[in-house]
């Protein structure tokens, strides 16, 4: 009998004489790690189930048969006594390393992985000093591309299966697989098939050796030359945690910096590799001004450019009034910059016209829950959903890492329902795919809600919703006509399932709300979740999947015509994004980090405008039409906070020296405010964050230091009653 368990719910064991207490189910490998003891591993990856294939993590466990055992497959048990450095263990590890090296090309001097290679490192620490193998090595043609972005060197591969198991267990697309068997086994794809996955870069990252390399990073740097800065991906609204690896002020690569609550340790290929714009030679390095109307954009000093802006805006304000000025903010700048932007417009320039490009949500808050329009659940809680309903949303394309979380939920038993106009990657794994006609999402939401309302035993029946929906049967008939009988029937069946589901999660894309006939998409789906009780229960929830890295932050900071920071109503309300672009009453546009020219049919931003300012990184379509262009900094060159899709407020950090000549958006806004007679006294984004925290219930108590390395998820519950 093991000694009696201490009453702390933990399992107690000793490893190399060190007492360790860990939760039940912990693997010996993880327990050793907690005790500060390294047990070498190749095949095991903490995000995947144990495999036990590489035979590297040997330990000896007293009273267990046939030593040694593998630490990565053995769960701890009470009173267990583990030894990691016995002669038997050391010999077994030497043996495995010798086996792994007999067919290894030992081309470390030209291998990207050299310096951060587990085969190198473990051989140094656990391996034999020399090989006894003096026979024929296995040979393969040197690296073969398995896709445009990933190369495979089968000679370096130690066949640990991490990459192929990522593809089967995590991304579930089986893009990379094991081919052949035994000593002929290799990683590969079907003949002529590319490894076509938006998650492919993860296989490169988790490859413990130099077998999988990225086309982008190959031969670019040695690991020990890299400066590694913790930051957050700027590519979509998920906000995956990244480590920016920099060599001589150039981003060499971005690696995952595991945040279990957000990315679960994974990055999509866009997040990993689409950072070229930061290093782009075309980056704006000096302000540009148009000195004569109709003239060309010419380089200018900061003084001249900012002076021109202050003077021209003052003139326009005097001539037409402050509301002739409009401000279009960004979904990719920091919270602090968004906050200062609206403050500049509203306080220094006195105009109510502030907005940004976003989906259509009627009012500041969902009228049923009184919450701001945002996801009501945490990303990590997706795993607890029983039903995941994706309406007009395709995370694989738009918020890729959420696709992996949905697959994790699927593995845990969730059923996936895809309600979409076009095929999506998840269709293959879905319990049901309901295909919609073009712009049919609004109709689908209506039909789902209508059918749910007809269910008995609704968890949370709402008279208000009942009256609104059942009182307008002609709208339901129109929706039926648009969707057709088959789709209508399928949607009604789905509504019944949602009503009966233990925990349904309903997701829709922010931008789908802009399609014709989709004005009620958001409120209808929110109402569906509310009446079926799929809100505020573990795993259940509803909400929009936002577009950009700080789409939600932009809303929070009051880059909305009807909202001040903290969703306080703006009075009077200003003009909307579309109105500012099209209204002749708006004579001046101040655009920060946005490219509205792309949202105009003819791309002409100047219609009726006398003066346009654009703060940008590159000379975009909008910048080309501006009178003053101010060169700004990218996410990699400044500090600040961003708010992701499930309301994690996270810090981005300066990884590069700022591009000479360019300035951070917040610095530019401060200088301009001073010129306009509003000298702000912030020493940096930290001070701005403190001001936001003081005003905004969702940011209450936040400090720059408090954001730490993993950010803080702030709840929406307080807001509902704020």
């Amino acid at each position, binding site marked *: 009998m093991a000694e009696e368990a201490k009453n702390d719910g933990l399992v107690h064991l000793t490893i190399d004489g060190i007492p360790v207490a860990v939760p039940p189910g912990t693997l010996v490998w993880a327990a050793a790690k907690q005790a500060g003891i390294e047990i070498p591993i190749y095949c095991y990856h903490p995000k995947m189930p144990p495999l*036990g294939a590489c*035979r590297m993590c040997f330990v000896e466990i007293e009273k267990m048969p046939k030593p*040694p055992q593998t630490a990565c497959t053995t769960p701890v048990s009470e009173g267990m006594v583990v030894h990691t450095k016995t002669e038997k263990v050391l010999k077994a590890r030497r043996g495995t390393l010798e*086996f*792994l090296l007999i067919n290894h090309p030992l081309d470390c001097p030209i291998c990207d992985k050299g310096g951060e290679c587990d085969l190198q490192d473990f051989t140094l620490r656990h391996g034999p000093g020399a090989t006894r193998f003096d*026979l024929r090595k296995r040979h393969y043609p040197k690296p073969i591309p398995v896709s445009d972005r990933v190369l495979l060197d089968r000679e370096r591969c130690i066949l640990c299966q991490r990459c192929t198991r990522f593809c089967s267990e995590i991304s579930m697309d089986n893009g990379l697989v094991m081919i052949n068997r035994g000593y002929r086994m290799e990683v590969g794809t079907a003949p002529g098939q590319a490894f076509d996955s938006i998650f492919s870069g993860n296989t490169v990252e988790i490859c413990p050796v130099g077998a999988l390399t990225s086309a982008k990073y190959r031969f670019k740097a040695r690991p020990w030359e890299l400066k590694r800065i913790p930051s957050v991906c700027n590519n979509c609204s998920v906000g995956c945690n990244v480590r920016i690896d920099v060599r001589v002020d150039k981003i060499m690569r971005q690696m995952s910096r595991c945040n279990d609550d957000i990315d679960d340790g994974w990055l999509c290929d866009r997040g990993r590799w689409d950072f070229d714009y930061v290093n782009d030679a075309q980056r704006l390095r000096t302000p540009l001004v148009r000195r004569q109307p109709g003239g060309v954009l010419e380089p200018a000093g900061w003084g001249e450019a900012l002076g021109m802006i202050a003077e021209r805006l003052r003139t326009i304000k005097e001539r037409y009034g402050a509301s002739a000025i409009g401000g279009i903010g960004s979904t990719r700048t920091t919270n602090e910059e968004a906050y200062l932007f609206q403050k500049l417009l509203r306080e220094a320039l006195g105009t109510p016209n502030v907005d940004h490009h976003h989906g259509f949500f009627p009012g500041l808050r969902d009228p049923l829950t009184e919450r701001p329009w945002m996801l009501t659940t945490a990303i990590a809680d997706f795993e607890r959903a029983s039903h995941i309903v994706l309406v007009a949303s395709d995370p694989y394309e738009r918020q890729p890492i959420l696709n992996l979380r949905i697959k994790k939920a699927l593995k845990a038993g969730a059923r996936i329902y895809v309600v979409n106009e076009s095929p999506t990657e998840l269709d293959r794994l879905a319990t049901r795919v309901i295909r919609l006609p073009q712009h049919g999402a609004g109709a689908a939401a209506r039909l789902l809600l209508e059918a749910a309302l007809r269910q008995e035993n609704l968890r949370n029946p709402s008279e208000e919703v009942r009256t609104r929906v059942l009182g307008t049967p002609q709208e339901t008939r129109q929706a039926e006509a648009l969707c057709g009988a088959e789709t209508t029937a399928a949607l009604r069946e789905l509504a019944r399932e949602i009503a009966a589901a233990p925990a349904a999660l309903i997701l829709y894309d922010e931008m789908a709300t802009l399609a014709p006939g989709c004005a009620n998409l958001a409120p209808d789906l929110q109402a569906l979740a509310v009446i079926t009780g799929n809100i505020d229960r573990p795993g259940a929830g509803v909400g929009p999947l936002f577009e950009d890295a700080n789409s939600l932050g932009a809303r929070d900071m009051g880059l909305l015509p009807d909202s001040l920071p903290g969703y306080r109503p703006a009075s009077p309300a200003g003009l909307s994004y579309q109105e500012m672009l099209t209204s002749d009453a708006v004579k001046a546009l101040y655009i920060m980090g946005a490219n509205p020219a792309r949202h105009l049919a003819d791309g002409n931003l100047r219609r009726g405008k006398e003066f346009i300012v654009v703060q940008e990184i590159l000379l975009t379509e909008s910048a080309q039409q501006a009178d003053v262009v101010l060169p700004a900094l990218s996410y990699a060159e400044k500090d600040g906070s961003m708010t992701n899709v499930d309301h994690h407020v996270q810090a981005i950090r300066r990884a590069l020296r700022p591009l000479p000549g360019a300035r951070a958006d917040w610095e530019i806004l401060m200088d301009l405010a001073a010129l306009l007679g509003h000298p702000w006294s912030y020493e940096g984004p930290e001070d701005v964050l403190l001001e936001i925290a003081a005003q905004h219930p969702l940011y209450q108590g936040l400090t720059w230091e408090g954001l730490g390395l993993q950010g803080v998820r702030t709840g929406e519950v307080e807001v509902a009653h704020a």
Partner: protein
Amino acid sequence: MPELIITKHIDVPGIDRLSVYRQYGGYEALEKALREYQPEEIVELVKKSGLRGRGGAGFPTGMKWGFLAKNEPRYLCCNCDESEPGTFKDRMLMEKNPHQLVEGVIITSYACRVSTAFIYVRGELAYAARQVQRAVDEAYAAGYIGKNILGSGYSLDVIVHRGAGAYICGEESALMESLEGRRGYPRLKPPFPAAVGLYGGPTVINNCETLSTVPAIVRNGADWYASFGTEKSKGTRIFCLSGHVKKPGNYELPLGTPLRTLIYDEQYGGGILGDKQLKAVIPGGSSTFILGADKIDTPLDFESVAAAGSMLGSGGVIVMHEDTCIVDAVLRMTEFYRDESCGKCTPCREGTYWLVQLLERIEHGHGKMSDIDLLLDICDNISGKSFCPLGDAATSSITSSIKLFREEYEYHVREGCCMVGPKARKPAAAAL
């Protein structure tokens, strides 16, 4: 000749057809089982009979059934993936008397409250698979398989599944992976199949010969079966005799019959081919340790063969006479394990690759004296370190042959040619 159990009717013409099988008492055991026994009583009966698995490990069959977890659905896998070099009994049972196997499958499924049974037939054995499929089809038509079998209320589905060329799928967890449509990699244990097996359900998995024995036990009783064999190794089993004997073939004998009887008795092996001297015997398929000629009087039961330094294994007795070059023979067996290693774990995949190259070098006269100890050390780094027993199996013939015939290895290194056999005493250059 002692009484036969499993092969009693094997040579009856037409026994592979239901009508003939029934004339010889076929499916009476099933009727008896359904009529007279509760499922648990059959488990007890088989426990009492002392029947042990005939696949290789020799685990008590009834005990295995008793371990089965209670949740449903449960599955039965009949392991007919016979691939162990030197073993050819299951093929005979399937080809010649498939109904006996099918009856065993049905009774076992009933005993274990299984609703779907799979018969996994080795891919290469196309005719055997056709025979088993036909027997299953006939049994369905006769109401022995399907809904409400013989009015008992018990229902069973039986699926014959063909492998496609992989020795490793004879390992029980790899077999289940293969049945689930995956590469035949062995699974982590625990959990054991009795708890979490096929499709995650409790699964009982037994060898073809084991299940073919079950009808006779049900028909004649546990005591009757236990009266054959020895104290701990009850019953009879089929010994597959091959190699340098005059009359190779399958012989059913009570456990405990001396090896000498099997090899030399006129009824069985009839002596060594060409009346040459016996050199060595592999008693239980190529995965077991080689025994020297001095072990000829070892009784063929689980305990005695273990005491002699090997294993009864799958019952494949491979005989080698004096003209056998042990290095070449061992090379041949090691090539098998290299080719059949699934590749999942490092020691087995890389180790067998290395062992074959070393053995080739020694056999062809280019070896070094240090290679012999290197072979042993590589074996030590594989054995007990590999994921599944295939790695261990790959080392058995090497370690045991070096122990018994080290001078022959040294001769190869020193003289550059074989010590015995057709390539003996010729210069290395000429020996190809």
